[in-house]
């Protein structure tokens, strides 16, 4: 599998017996976590399923830095063993995810970090974390003017002057 370094057996901690995963971050940090913790991630779960199918365990390469990865692991550790509806692949989508106080504190980070976390969570398919991050980002732009939003979202105004002044939006109130 392309994402996976085929490592020497010695580097995979206790294959088969203890359920540990080797995650490798983009800055080449090797992080060992219990499979149990990361089972919240659909991506990791699928990888693990793959391991079981091929009875070969690999390190899992992840495209974000250890700083972000550790943050995600912290999140997963905190909710270890908890049932969160959003993370249940079989449950119906709950609509808006609930506000969790711990998450709000956990995500009290700067914009760049928040962005990295949400991308990592998206990549790892941790829906509850994506939901909480999305809420945090929404909080940043709530109540802002269009100009302020451009600043925060880092977008350029790509409307022509005519488009900008035409009542394109139906709700002019």
């Amino acid at each position, binding site marked *: 599998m392309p994402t996976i370094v085929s490592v020497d057996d010695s580097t995979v901690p206790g294959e088969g017996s203890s359920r540990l995963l080797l995650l490798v971050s983009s800055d080449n940090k090797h992080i060992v976590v219990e499979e149990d913790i990361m089972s919240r991630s659909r991506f990791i779960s699928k990888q693990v399923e793959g391991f079981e199918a091929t009875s070969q365990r690999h390190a899992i390469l992840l495209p974000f830095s250890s700083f972000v990865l550790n943050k995600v692991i912290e999140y997963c550790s905190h909710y270890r063993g908890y049932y969160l509806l959003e993370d249940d692949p079989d449950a119906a989508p709950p609509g808006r995810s609930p506000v969790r106080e711990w998450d709000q504190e956990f995500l009290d980070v700067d914009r760049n970090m928040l962005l990295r976390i949400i991308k990592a969570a998206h990549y790892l398919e941790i829906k509850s974390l994506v939901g909480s991050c999305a809420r945090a980002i929404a909080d940043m732009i709530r109540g802002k003017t269009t100009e302020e939003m451009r600043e925060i979202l880092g*977008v350029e105004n790509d409307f022509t002057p005519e488009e900008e002044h035409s009542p394109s939006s139906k709700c*002019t109130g």
Partner: protein
Amino acid sequence: MPGFFRHYSERNPTNEASNTAVVGPRQILPCLPVQLEPVKTCINREGVQSAFTVEHSTSCEFAGILQQYRSSEAPTKCAILLSESSGQKDSMSLHGKQRESLLRVALLIGSAIAGMTEHQRGVKSTVFRTLYATSDDHPETITRFSLGLDLRKHLYSLEKPVELVVLWPHLSGMSLLSSLPNDILLEILEDLDWRDLIACKRTCHRLDTLVGTAVLLHYTIELAACGMLDGERGRLTLPIRERLDRLKQHREAWRNLTWTEPTISPTSWVGLTPPILFARSVDNDEYFARQPATNTHRCTTKAVCNSHGELLFSIVARDYWSIGTEEYQSRNGWFLNESYILLDLFTSDATAARPIQSPSARCLVVVPISLSDARSYRFFQPEFFQDLTHWSHRIIPWCTGDVDQGYFYADPEDRLLSLRPSTPGSSLSSQFVIDIPVRTFTEYIQSHPEEDGAPVVVPWEEWGPRGARITLETGTGHARWPRTSVHGMRQLSVREDALRGSVTVLDYHPRRVARALARGDAQVVHGGSVGGVVTLLPCIETTVPLPEGPARSLAAGRMLGAWLCKNGVLFVEVRDFSVAVLYFC
């Protein structure tokens, strides 16, 4: 190509500065006979797991290169991991020169692969990774770091062919927006209210399209434009698409005002507890509580509803409101919201036991419900009215809002007060009407925060001309039954003109008016004036003839009332108290 790399390998790995000097576009680029073509997807997630989809134009060039390498027979899978930096700033802040550097690296790696695979094919694969430390201060760091340490080390220590994975994280992004996929953006946007969504739509094309096409967001905006809130019932039972359809249907029905077949409500309970009438339709979707204007001038029972239109309590024989040290005489009180009550002091009719002496009484007084920490506001009525001594407000409509029922409901914050000063006992065929949205008061109070002290005096000029509409209404006159009714921001009046009678609906909702103006509807009326008092508040005016049934009962004198509700007009006939609900939609 191998020679080129050997050149590197012979160098001292720690001497990074010298490496940087060697790596330049001139050395690298000529080695790459690559045709750049825009390719949307470089390596997708399925093809090479954990590879990003390349979507943006700046990375297309690179995708083109990769495509080239993929299609060439050399490496089985060639891809390059351009990972996020471990540096202080993330790769989003890359721009200009840095991006060039990165591309250069990418090209270099590409050529490395091309050179290597010839003799390294068929052996067990591995992945190597390039690392970037990027920062604004050291744009060259990328090049140096990847080439100096990682690339060279790997390329030349490899006995095996290379299987590389491309991860191309938002190099072209540089921004929160473009680095996030649509489904994440939607999740963010779903958390916002309509004001934020409108602001988002105006930022750029991508968000405009995204907000415009997502059903949930569309519904949010449409609700706001219609002055509605999402109801509990709909949330639980109906998919959004259907709720949106119903909402649009509702909107169109009100715009066109066409009568449907009457729905005769099989009286779940209709009580006439004089002088207050309650009516509730079977499915609890509609709720009415109002006081029909009785012909007794001294009505002793008043019912008060809260901001959700629920009946809170009745005031029995209460002519005085004692508010702190001030004493008001008022027969009428409405809840503006949870904290304020509005009293109408313009009640100096001849039959009142205590005629009001104080000139300050000719105003609408907003008093806080909690007495300790707030002061009251006196909204004066125009001079014109002050001179009319024998007028009292006939409190026609309840200031009703909706309860959270049904699929959606009228925003309780948006309600209309319709005051009708009238001379008791006289049989004028026309009367004054002052329509005031509740927001006129609540917004004034919000923008003039309270402090302890004397009541705030608000002259008419300050609130009235823009926040109210005064008209002279004809044809409704005094009758045994109320001809006027209010629901949310709409006001209904029934006229007995010509043979059949007609119904006029005025809609004061600012966003609905704005929409009608944007469409260029002719029915928008701008303000009104009576006796030199000019008001500017616009509204949509629609007049339609009465439907057949109510027209007949009107002619036969059997009609007991016509009430506006969310979905239409409720006509009540005196005959066996059956309630006929005629829906617009």
